């Protein structure tokens, strides 16, 4: 069983929901990420989404765009992200890591080369924003052969046909984008999310995590109750952006927010 499947199974058994932070690797500096990952695990997160910085993050709002720019200014890359993940794995064999990014860095490495490198780094899942199942079957198959899950996004306007397609090609979990918009936007509607999750759940048994627009412990609690996990990204990265002169302060604010979310979700 994959680390992701095992994690969700374990959570389901204990009636808990997954807390999934997204951070951009190498933001604000390359050495910030690895210690933060370990701290986040201590704060109770279940899965870590590592953002691979890309020069043209078309689906991201300004907060994650700027995080990418900061990381790229330090020459962060897909290869270096994999190296950080591999380093993390040396001391943490439990926490699943999902790479989240755009296709072109993977294209540059070549699908097979990337799949091999991801396996060597012991990556658990790959979510590629601009690789829908229509175009992604080859890459997904290569990853599957190596025991790596391919995670797809679902959106408020995804049809039943598309949900079925994601469920067929994807594995690990589905990531439901809770609103029409870019990351960090602010008009998440819990009732809409609830309705859509019912539709998705009627089609697939795969766990569904919900993200985009989760800003605080209260939203995290509301959203977690509706699905199997909650993803928080821009709210964490804002802490980095607000404390560029003090990375330690950024880290403690991130951990404080995640701890609060953990508590709220588990209540």
């Amino acid at each position: 069983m994959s680390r992701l499947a095992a994690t969700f199974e374990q959570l389901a058994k204990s009636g808990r929901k997954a807390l999934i932070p997204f951070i951009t690797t190498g933001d604000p500096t390359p050495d910030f990420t690895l210690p933060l990952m370990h701290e986040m695990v201590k704060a109770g997160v279940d899965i870590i989404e590592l953002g691979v910085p890309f020069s043209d993050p078309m689906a991201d709002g300004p907060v994650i765009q700027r995080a990418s720019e900061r990381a790229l200014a330090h020459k962060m890359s897909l290869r270096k992200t994999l190296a950080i993940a591999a380093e993390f794995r040396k001391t943490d064999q439990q926490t699943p890591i999902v790479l989240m990014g755009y296709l072109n860095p993977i294209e540059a490495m070549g699908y097979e080369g990337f799949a091999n490198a991801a396996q060597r780094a012991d990556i658990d899942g790959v979510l590629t924003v601009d690789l829908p199942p229509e175009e992604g079957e080859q890459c997904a198959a290569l990853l599957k052969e190596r025991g790596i899950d391919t995670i797809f996004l679902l959106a408020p306007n995804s049809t039943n046909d598309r949900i079925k397609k994601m469920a067929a090609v994807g594995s690990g979990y589905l990531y439901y984008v809770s609103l029409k918009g870019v990351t960090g936007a602010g008009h998440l509607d819990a009732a809409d999310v609830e309705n859509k999750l019912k539709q998705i759940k009627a089609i697939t048994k795969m766990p569904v995590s919900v993200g985009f627009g989760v800003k605080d412990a209260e939203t995290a609690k509301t959203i977690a109750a509706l699905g199997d996990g909650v993803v928080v990204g821009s709210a964490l990265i804002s802490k980095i952006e607000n404390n560029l002169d003090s990375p330690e302060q950024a880290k403690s604010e991130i951990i404080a927010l995640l701890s609060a979310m953990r508590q709220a979700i588990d209540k």
Partner: protein
Amino acid sequence: MTEKYTMPDVKGHFGPYGGMFVAETLMPPIQELNAAYQRYLKDPEFIAELDADLQHYVGRPSPLYYAERWSRELGGAQIYLKREDLNHTGSHKINNTVGQALLAKRMGKTRIIAETGAGQHGVATATVAARLGLECVVYMGAVDVARQSLNVYRMKLLGATVVAVESGSKTLKDALNEALRDWVTNVDNTFYIIGTVAGPHPYPAMVRDFQAIIGRETKQQCQDMIGKLPDALVACVGGGSNAIGLFYPFIDDESVRLIGVEAAGDGVASGRHSAPLCAGRPGVLHGNRTYLMADDDGEIIETHSISAGLDYPGVGPEHAWLKDTGRAEYVNITDNEALEGFYALTRMEGIIPALESAHAMAYTMKLAPTMRKDETIVINLSGRGDKDMQTMAKREGIEL
């Protein structure tokens, strides 16, 4: 090539290129657009309305002009100019925006967005939006807003909101990113009019089909004026819409050389250029697989060109396919060479070309003397140079 050319396939692929590489939120609207496009493409009423608009509003057909003096001066092939600069709004861009706006109207969309580099597509979009009474937002890189201020003013006059994009390299690619973000957010009421043969399927095929009027007219006009097919077609390539519009109806005519001219900026060897077909590598950006300017990590490299309209790190996927199959040739012209082309056409024929089109002029100055006098070159004069007066005056140290 003995079989008839039928690209792209149903999934929007030109061989390994093209496709639909977009975030999930955009898949349903792209599929909706594709369905509408496939339907109206064959709808006689739609086609009649489009033809009428192209004739009465755009001013088509555009002339094919024999550049007799310039041909004599260069001493080789006879040169003809396809006068897209004479279209309403001053470039070929309007052919496509008229078509997509009619689609938007049929699909019940009330809001139009667009990206623009030189501003020609932005102006052409603002123009059709004004005519149809639709809200219009144009995204333009902050660098381009500064170097094409005349077009920014035109768009505003036409009632469009121009958003200066401050992210990334602040040029055309960043404008496209921002337009895609807008579309993801306002997907229900918004129609995204992409200005070039890039983006996810069906855009590359759809924009090509709207621009193919250029090549169809050219073919007929060559028949009327010289009684045969031309020997070579030359067009500048940024995203590649004016080039594909000219080339497409000639793809099965194997005797006709198709030559796309990319922007070499300071020279391909300098690394400061916008020539992905000549010096890039395949990758995925803005919804399709094509040749890109990217580094070993797959990050997109900043491009450079004197012409804002060619300053783009990708190129339409059909050009990538035509390059790989060898059906079309792709060459490049530096900023300085383009300026020579600009002055040559201005002084020899009394026609001031856009800096984009000047790249095609400059390559023709190299090509024509190598050809026989009984051979013919058609250049796509894709736009007029009015928008570049400030850039040119500044280069010459003149304050306007």
